[in-house]
């Protein structure tokens, strides 16, 4: 949750997702992140939750005048993906 290593990986993963999608399109980024992390598409419900999360994290960072608000929000989201049981455990 707070490990600096995991945070670094989340930031690196976010940079990769940004690089592999274009135009900073949030739905495409969510789709790409799920595909890379979990080898599947996000469900419609997951798309909605993720988009809402990204929007609110971004506004929170913008309110603190962070210049890279969208990137930080995406890294927060990537960190959540790393915390998932589905990510941690092979089925």
């Amino acid at each position, binding site marked *: *949750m*707070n*490990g*600096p290593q995991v*945070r670094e990986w989340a930031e690196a993963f976010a940079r990769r997702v940004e690089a592999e999608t274009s135009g900073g399109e949030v739905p495409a980024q969510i789709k790409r992140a799920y595909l890379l992390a979990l080898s599947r598409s996000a469900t419609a*419900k*997951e798309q909605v*939750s*993720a988009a809402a*999360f990204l929007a*609110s*994290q971004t506004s*929170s*960072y913008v309110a603190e005048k*962070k210049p890279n608000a969208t990137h*930080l929000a995406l890294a*927060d*989201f990537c*960190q*959540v993906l790393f*915390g*998932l*049981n*589905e990510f*941690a*455990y092979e*089925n």
Partner: protein
Amino acid sequence: MNLRMRIELPTRARAFQPPFGVSEITKRQLEAAGTMSRRQLLQRAGGGLGWLAFASLLGRNATAGPLNPLAPRASHFAGTAKSVIWIFANGGPSQVDTWDYKPELAKRDGTELAGFDNKTGFFPGSVGPLMKSPFAWEQSGQSGTWTSDLFPHLARQVDKLAFIHSCFTNSNNHSPALFMMNTGVTRMGYPCVGSWVTYGLGSESDALPSFVVMSDPLNRGLPKGNALNWGAGFLPSVYQGTWLKPQGEPIANLKPPANLNEQRQRAQLDLLASLNRDHLAGSALDHELGARIESFELAYRMQAAAPEAFDVSREPEHIRRLYGIGEKHCGHFAAQCLTARRMVERGVRFVQVYSGGMENQQSWDCHSDLIGNHRGFAAEADQPVAALLADLEQRGLLKDTLVIWAGEFGRLPVSQKGGKPGRDHNPHAFTAWLAGGGVRGGVHYGETDEIGFRAAVNKVSVRDFHATILHALGLDHEQLAFKFQGLDQRLTGVERARVVKEIFA
């Protein structure tokens, strides 16, 4: 409440409504136990038959909200202790030099022990003659308990202590004996006492780990077997001990990364929990997955609660002086004992503190230089442990807290040869004491033979010892069970084990 009460699994998919196929007796038992109906359970948990098994695993008291394997649960009967602090004298202190006064041994000092099997200890080639205790003994307290001059502070608390002089174990070497003392089995991989206790009773704290372990902070190593000594074995891993790092921050990474404020971290955790719950609902039961969801919530709460709990500098000066904080010889152990008190004060169920490091001169394992070894380790432990007892008592916590002093085995009354003689391992006799938690001070249960070699009268096996700990907590060792590999596994195993009722008030 009877943990053996089962919730019958319906054989037909339609049979989810409690009245269907459930006898009147079971319905009344369910109501009396305050357990949810199966329909409620399934609704709240989001579906999945597996949750029924999980619920029966937890027994009763499923709380409103997500199922929490650490929610506090009622004991089988009214116990006298709510929590345990176990000071583990690692390496095996010598009973005849600490708590088992043997004047006969002094009389026979220097003589051979006839018929002694050289393979009793670990070094068959180093067996010397009988060696008297080099320490001075006198009677202390109203109980007139014989105490050695190794423990001047504990001597003043001696009337709180109940001694079992007739402990014995099944192994003459550290790792198997440590596993035996902690898990009841000499082989690795079984659940330890702390895990069974947390499984049985849950935790009173939702912001700190329920079971905490502290080990030597002076770079002298962990007890042999390391984390297997506080592992949960086949019990759900949520019940394993949380080992606190002995140097630096006891729990790593309690602070969130710089960019995450409270609200943003909370948003992360909420999203994580919601995604994890959806995943769990759609998959087969795995209580590990459920426990992992809960572990993030515990971690979140620990961010605030743990730094406060570990911060002994918040204690007033007179308390710090009582324990010996900052003293060169015992300051490190004082901090751990004081932390233990703060833990149980905050609802932690089970705390184990290891006195000493791995082995030989790094622990109570006095193969050589009995005098130097035991003077050193007794100096580390005496004042802090005595302070712990006095401090718990003055706060009114001692009656609810079972304090245990025990190692993994004892030592031989014959010397181990060397420049400065020591004593080798002895599985046949060791002394443990207990205090608080309903224990009657001044009791001496069981005896060794006249030279302190073997437990002789009212022998207490490790399984008996475990049954006794569970009893203090209101747990029936024959009822506290977990189905694994087709067996109702118990801490005390299959053979009869006896609660040493004589040590309780």
